[in-house]
Every structure is written in structure tokens, then in C-alpha cells.
């Protein structure tokens, strides 16, 4: 059986900074080594930029196995120790169903339906009418 010449690509995943947030967008196949590299890159980016949050956009990821799930959990744990919150955004329903059946529910991981929602969750509480009385979202 042939499936063309182009193999699964393993590229360096870019970490973008948007204000106080580091945005990481994952696409398609992620090799184990690329995932581990990402973990290291995010740790360094958080420490070096004093970013307060990391958003991992997984809407382009078709498969999350226990290895990649563990990488997400470890990224979040690392970031937390570096005083940053992590939100995994845009998980596909089929991936969520599979992870639960696999037994990997990632209880410590914050999630959002998409990046916009994630950014809203992470935005500092600001209410022009009652300064200082903003809603505290998950300390």
C-alpha cells in the first residue's frame, strides 16, 4: 500500500507571544521528540518572558495518546511552578471521547472550547464600573 511520498512532518512548534500569553498552535502529527522539545521550549519561554499564561491550541490535532496527554499535563505542571497558568484549547470531540475511554482524563488540566474562550478565561479581571471588584477566575 502506498500513501505518497510526503511523510508525517516533524517540525519545530513555534511559541508566539501575545501580550501576557504564550500561544502554541499544534497541527497534525506531533512526533514524540517534537513534543518533548515543545515541553522544554515552553518552559524556557515562560521563564524568559514572565508570561502569565500558556494557551495550547489543539484544534488541529487528530490524535492524543497517553504520551502526548502526559506531555500536556507536564507542560501545565512546569508552567505552574513558573507562575503561569496553562489552558488547552479546542480539543476535538473525538479526541475527548477517546481520551476518556483510554482512562486519561487529565483532571489538573484547564480547558477551553477555543483560543478566544481561553484568552477570555485568562484575561485579568477588569470592570470599568467597579474597579477591583472584577470576577476572579480560578486563582
Amino acid at each position, binding site marked *: *500500500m502506498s500513501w505518497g511520498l510526503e511523510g508525517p512532518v*516533524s517540525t519545530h512548534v513555534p511559541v508566539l507571544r501575545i501580550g501576557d500569553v504564550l500561544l502554541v498552535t499544534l497541527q497534525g502529527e506531533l512526533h514524540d521528540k517534537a513534543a518533548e522539545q515543545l515541553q522544554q521550549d515552553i518552559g524556557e519561554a515562560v521563564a524568559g518572558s514572565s508570561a502569565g499564561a500558556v494557551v495550547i491550541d489543539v484544534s488541529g490535532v487528530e490524535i492524543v495518546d497517553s504520551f502526548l496527554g502526559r506531555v500536556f499535563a507536564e507542560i501545565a505542571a512546569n508552567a505552574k511552578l513558573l507562575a503561569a497558568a496553562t489552558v488547552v484549547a479546542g480539543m476535538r*470531540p*473525538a*479526541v475527548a471521547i477517546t481520551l476518556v475511554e*483510554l*482512562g486519561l482524563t487529565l483532571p489538573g488540566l484547564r480547558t477551553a472550547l477555543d483560543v478566544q474562550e481561553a484568552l477570555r478565561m485568562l484575561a485579568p479581571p477588569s470592570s470599568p464600573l467597579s474597579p477591583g471588584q472584577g470576577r476572579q477566575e480560578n486563582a
Partner: protein
Amino acid sequence: MTETSGRVAACLPIRSDTDLAWVRQHVRQAAAEVGFGLVEQTKLITAASELARNTLVHGGGGQVESVFLDRGHARGLRLTFTDEGPGIPDVERALTDGYTSGAGLGLGLGGARRLVHEFSIDTSPGHGTSVTVVCWVGVPPRPREEAR
């Protein structure tokens, strides 16, 4: 019982993490060809990824063979992961969630079993391991009998 006929789709090596990605890609294409829906495809690819990683990490590398199955009106896909590694001394224990001999979460075998319709292991210490999984199109998930 209707006779099951099979046609080998591919036999792929599992020697590196690049091969793991190839296995996932192949299973994705084969599963789509058989006619699995999106959720079933995702489950099967994920199970394949877990098992291929076991073959690589615990078995020291090996191969996977995929076979298109035809049983009357039912179509399916069978994947057999084979290694020549140390084998699994206690299969029941290896299937228990949380048990791991490596650095993983210990969800690989038991988790993969939950994602497929049929699951079997042939292993003995010193003689390698062969794990076979089968998924059928349109068959509801197996009941959760293992409430351990």
C-alpha cells in the same frame, strides 16, 4: 459463524518515534478505507499508537501488520504488533491501569483494550510479545466488564 477472510494491507517496521507517526498515518488511511466513522477512527489510531509505542519501548522495536477483514456484511481492520523483546511475565497485571514497567502512565495496554472490539496477547518471558486488536465497522463498543 460466517467465515472471515482477510487481505494484508501493510506491514510496517516500528523502530523509532518517526515510525510511530507512520503507523498512525497508515492506520488512519486504512481505517478510512474500511469505512470507520471519525470517532472509531480516532479510537483505533490512538490504540495503535499506544501499542506501537509499547512495541518500541518495551519490546525493543518490532513491526505491525494490518489486515482488512471481511465477514459476511461486516468489515473490519486487524492490527498485529509483534516484537522479539523480553515478553510480559504477568499479562493480567500488565493490563491493569496504572501498572507500568517503564516511564509511562501505565494506560497503554489496558487503555488500548478499551478502545477496540477484540484484543488478544500472545507472550511469554524471553519469547517476545504479539498483541492483536480488531475493530469492526458499525459495532457498538464492548460492554465494560472489567470493573477492577
